């Protein structure tokens, strides 16, 4: 290779670098000059994207055109077109019933990710409510799942339509139905939740324990407490959190369980008592025997944690004494 050709190649490389570098300010200037982008907006009439031209990136279209275009967009093979259609429908649905129908249709026919469509429908509450109710009988469990959750915004509709979904063949739908009914709590829901504490699926049992305690409070605690020894960690945790959510009142129900025969139940009960503050209360001056039974049920780590908390709350001498006691 001659020196001249090397210099030429070098000049090309340098030129490429400078061209790319120049592209940064140029694209910035172009972006600054660019008129508003072709995002679908309603400004008196229909406005949909156009690539260029005298309409400055927009051209007005009538409602029929817009509906047809968005329906086609929802069925497109290209993801970005489907996303654009959902976003546009959501923007238009605030003022136009057909756009709302389009979104519900998109959910029912699973044209775009249901989670994305459900998010848009949820933002439009309370308007989609009555359109969603008929979908509780939809053949797709994914649709039923999202409808069950979306109806959580509409207590009346939920009570009327979602209750049936607690007997759904899909455990995901059953769990979603329980979650929704929790907010619209009723005696019937409580009865269903208590029945479902023995469901075959762990996540249904977990939701049932949360729902039962959310509706009946300490009244449901004795039904939920046995789940502290459930075979599934998820259920044990859900039961513990639900019971802790009741507050210190639950201690009277849970305290006897630290003497239960099942070590898992004893430990679960000790954790609940720790989390509701019963352990700290006993350390501050309660019955030493009760405290020791909780510590025995909870194990070494629960004991060490209690000691460490005590260190933070007590005077140094008291702490030393406490550590001597527990060690």
């Amino acid at each position: 290779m001659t020196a001249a050709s090397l210099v030429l190649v070098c000049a090309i490389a340098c030129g490429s670098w400078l061209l790319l570098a120049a592209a940064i300010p140029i694209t910035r200037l172009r972006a600054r000059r660019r008129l508003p982008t072709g995002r679908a907006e309603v400004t008196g009439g229909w406005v949909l994207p156009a690539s260029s031209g005298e309409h400055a990136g927009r051209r007005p279209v009538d409602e029929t055109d817009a509906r047809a275009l968005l329906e086609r967009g929802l069925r497109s093979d290209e993801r970005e077109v489907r996303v654009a259609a959902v976003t546009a429908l959501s923007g238009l649905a605030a003022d136009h019933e057909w756009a709302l129908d389009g979104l519900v249709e998109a959910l029912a026919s699973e044209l775009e990710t249901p989670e994305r469509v459900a998010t848009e429908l949820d933002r439009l509450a309370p308007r989609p409510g009555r359109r969603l109710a008929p979908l509780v009988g939809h053949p797709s469990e994914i649709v039923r799942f999202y409808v069950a959750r979306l109806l959580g915004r509409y207590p009346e509709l939920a009570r009327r339509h979602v209750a049936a979904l607690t007997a759904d063949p899909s455990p995901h739908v059953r769990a979603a139905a329980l979650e929704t009914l929790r907010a619209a709590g009723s005696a019937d829901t409580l009865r269903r939740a208590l029945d479902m504490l023995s469901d075959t699926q762990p996540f249904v049992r977990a939701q049932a324990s949360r729902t039962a305690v959310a509706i009946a409070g300490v009244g449901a605690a004795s039904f939920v407490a046995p789940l502290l020894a459930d075979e599934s960690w998820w259920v044990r945790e859900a039961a513990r959190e639900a019971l802790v959510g009741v507050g210190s009142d639950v201690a009277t129900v849970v305290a006897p369980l630290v003497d239960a025969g099942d070590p898992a139940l004893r430990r679960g009960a000790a954790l609940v008592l720790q989390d509701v503050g019963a352990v700290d209360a006993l350390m501050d001056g309660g019955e030493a025997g009760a405290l020791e039974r909780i510590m025995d049920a909870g194990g070494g780590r629960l004991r060490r944690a209690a000691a460490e908390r005590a260190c933070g709350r007590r005077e140094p001498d008291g702490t030393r004494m406490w550590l001597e006691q527990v060690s």
Partner: protein
Amino acid sequence: MTFEGVLRALVFGCTGYLVLLYGVHFSLMALGHVESRRRRRERSVDDPDTLATSRFAPGVSIIVPAYNESGGLPDAVRSLLALEYPEFEVIVVNDGSTDETLDVLVGALELVAVDATSRDVVPARPVEGYYRSVDPRLLVVDKVNGGKADALNAGLNHCRYRYVCGVDADMAFAPTALTRAMREISGDPEHIVGLTSYFENARDPARALEQGLQRVGPDTRPLFAFQTFDYLRAFFNNRTPWARMNFMLCAAGAFQLWRRDVVEELGGWSAEFTCEDIELTFRVHRTLRERGRAYRIAALPDCVGVTEGPDNVKNLVSQRERWQRVILETCWANRRMWFNPRYGTVGLLGVPYYVLSEILAPVFEVVAVGTLLAGGVGGLIDWREFAVLTLLVTFANSALTTGALLNLDLEARAYRASGVARLLGLMPLEMVVYRPIMAWARLKGTWRFLRGDRAWHKFERNVKAGAA
């Protein structure tokens, strides 16, 4: 063959390698531009922040493994708890730190000791204690030291959401980090099993994020600017096209988001390797392809946060030699994937790319330097030609970096014009100042790999506990 003939053959070999390497780099950069353009079009019709208030946002468990991170850890945890996302938890795993990491954390975040339970789905060293704060989303797990992978596994045992996000303890996170990442996943939740993202680099991440990167601009001290160039190229010229061709080779450990069931199915992170991120990424590819499953690992162009870059050459070499070692370890452990059509684009394009750009690079660098010295001693070098060739590589490298910077600019307008100008001005210096350091680090990493060294060689943090 004469001495001159040998040298000439070596020069041709090195030149051929360079032409091939830069040809691949420029092709990837072009593909990265096409992919970025497609994504910008897609994002222009979507509201990326919708998930921030959605009841349907999938839950994310963030795991922060920490070993002797007393300096920046409280800030990192605070920035995580401030994320604008409706459903997440933060699990900090203190991996048997020998400094005051746990005490600093307990004091800064007002933690109290509690007992809790673990799912025990993957093996990990024993847990010694748990801490909770008034914020129920935070759990601190104190465990016996076992390395970063083991700490991530301990965190995994306490995750309760569908996605897990492993992050570095020295990072500060942008409030929109999870919203943007999960929005990407929610577009194709069935197939996306993992995601990695772009992040910035600064001496003091929390301060950089607090002041606003756009306002203060990039850190243009040469060592940080050169690291920024590395990050830019690694993301926009590599990960973006890799994701497009579905052979993401490394979901970076600083921000690696995975579907929990997949990580659990694979048995968690492996403690057998120097670093855990590349190894897990390769294992996901290998296992899911062997099982015939359709999947993707995505790359998010949004900046999710700022990581702490080494502020001196010694620490930089320590970090980069470790990266080199883990690439070698992972590629060697997965050598049956090399050029193997069974593993699709990973076997046919991804692994060969690593072999070309990472494994062979130190070999050619040594050969090139040796040839140059021998040629110089023998008086066989045409120094004018050498200077022009050096300039050629310098400009080619600058063009690659500028291409990546252009993509970042089109995505986010991340820097002021003055910051961009300063970065552009520093680019030509990278080849003569920074590249020799990287070459040394890679050589050192390769040597340590050959010796079987698996140590982390953690470098000292820029931000100390007292200054935090």
